[in-house]
């Protein structure tokens, strides 16, 4: 069995396992689209195509953020509590296919989470972009999601499900609001604009806006975002090793 074939196997069955709980997939996908319908479409961004596009991008980033935080945070915590995970580790496969399969599953669910909001945005608002910028936006979305993927893994590997769920819910809303994923950050009071630039969610938003609309983010935002990626990567690595040490070393 090659690593590639095994990765495909793990990916396929993780995907199946999760798709059979449609409510989990659906809610992550529907919330951004509903927000767009209720809070953007009726308020006449209609004519301002730049603002409408930003609004769609923001909510799509929100979809990725919540999808990553929940699949990697709550999902991993849940796996750790089931006896299936240690069993899978006794099968003749290294850790790579398992981890790669989980990452790919997370990417698919993130993609599913941004489809409805993109469709509603394209159909009902004046949001617009070119095919090339759209593709650039998808790639940027993966980069933008990194701190949430890694932060999710940190939560998932360090907390039991019962704690991981409220903790995730507690961080994701202020992050989303403060990062300007609901309201454009230009509407914030000055102090909140400063705080906002330091949040990973703001960096995530601005990077995707940059790719889709060509509006460059501030240096502070990019530096803070890079810092978050480094910090969450270190934390995720620490949490993973600590968990391995406790359960499997």
């Amino acid at each position: 069995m090659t690593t590639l074939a095994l990765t495909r196997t793990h990916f396929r069955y993780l995907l199946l396992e999760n798709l059979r709980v449609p409510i989990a997939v659906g809610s992550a996908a529907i919330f951004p689209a509903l927000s767009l319908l209720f809070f953007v479409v009726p308020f006449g961004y209609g004519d301002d195509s730049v603002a409408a596009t930003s609004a769609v991008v923001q909510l799509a980033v929100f979809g990725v953020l919540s999808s990553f935080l929940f699949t990697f945070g709550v999902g991993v915590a849940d796996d750790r509590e089931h006896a299936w995970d240690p069993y899978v580790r006794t099968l003749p496969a290294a850790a790579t296919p398992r981890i790669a399969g989980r990452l790919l599953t997370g990417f698919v669910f993130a993609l599913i989470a941004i489809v409805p909001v993109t469709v509603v945005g394209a159909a009902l608002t004046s949001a617009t972009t070119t095919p090339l910028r759209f593709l650039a936006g998808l790639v940027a979305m993966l980069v933008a999601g990194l701190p949430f993927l890694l932060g999710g893994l940190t939560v998932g590997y360090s907390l039991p499900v019962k704690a991981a769920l409220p903790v995730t819910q507690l961080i994701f809303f202020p992050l989303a609001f403060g990062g300007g994923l609901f309201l454009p950050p230009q509407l914030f009071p000055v102090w909140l604009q400063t705080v906002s630039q330091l949040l990973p969610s703001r960096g995530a938003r601005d990077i995707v806006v940059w790719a889709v609309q060509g509006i460059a983010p501030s240096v502070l935002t990019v530096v803070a975002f890079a810092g978050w990626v480094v910090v969450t990567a270190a934390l995720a690595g620490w949490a993973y090793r600590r968990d391995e040490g406790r359960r499997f070393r």
Partner: protein
Amino acid sequence: MTTDTAQRTPSDVGEQLVRPVATARGVIRRFGSTVALNGVDLDVVRGTITGLLGPNGAGKSTLLSLLTGLRRPDSGRVELFGGDPTDPGRRQRLGVTPQETGLPATLRVGEVLSFVSRHYPQPLPAGEVLERFGLTGLERRQCGGLSGGQKRRLAVALAFAGDPALVVLDEPTTGLDVEARRALWDGVRAYHDGGGTVLLTSHYLDEIEELAQRVVVIGAGRVLAEGDTASVRRLVGLSLVELRSDALPPLPGVVRDDVDGDRHRLHTADADLLVRDLVRSGAAFRDLQVRTASLEEAFLTLTEAAA
């Protein structure tokens, strides 16, 4: 992934036949301040059924987790097919049973089986595995909807899916009714008759006696005894003779005597002989009771004898 198992020379094959399929040498494993294994040696000989017998918390599961590559020993050496069990290549001919409570609830029986089979170079056909464990017709059922017994059977079946040379079964029949237990034992015997090697744990002496040729008794992280089932039965199949007496003379065959006031609890391998000796000694006694010692009581005796 290593390829050395696939490219064996004839001399290696000869060596493989005599070398145990799994070994532990002087293995110590701690969890914080608890010592789960305290210098354990074990050989699992090819083509045998070896039973690991011990009460809960004896260290059986920890030993299995070392042999299946889940954990590493703090000191000592563990080998699986002549190599490190944490190397995935060494686990290509190993089959393990998951705990049935952990089966992915939303996946179907056929899907779980196929997921596991894909990890092995030459898995058994799904139909054969399902039939052997009485799961035919359940392929399309989601695991979450199976009965307890069906889950247990699927969990055991997964250990055989990859056509392994060694199967490790941790408490395989816990929670099964008599009939299901018999069916499972038949499955294990059929695999053994075909040349397979089995390592199983149990805290039931009966189960080990039924299946294993060789028994390794584990208690408090140490190997207390090992041998064929008859000798282990003599060792742990103790009887308890309880009585009240103000002055009890020393009696032969008493492994241990728990005294509480005038109450004596005599542990012995032969209760009939002990009672005869007791009557012959002429000592005054009352409230005589004879019963079989539980495995836990027998282990307490063995553990103290070993300490």
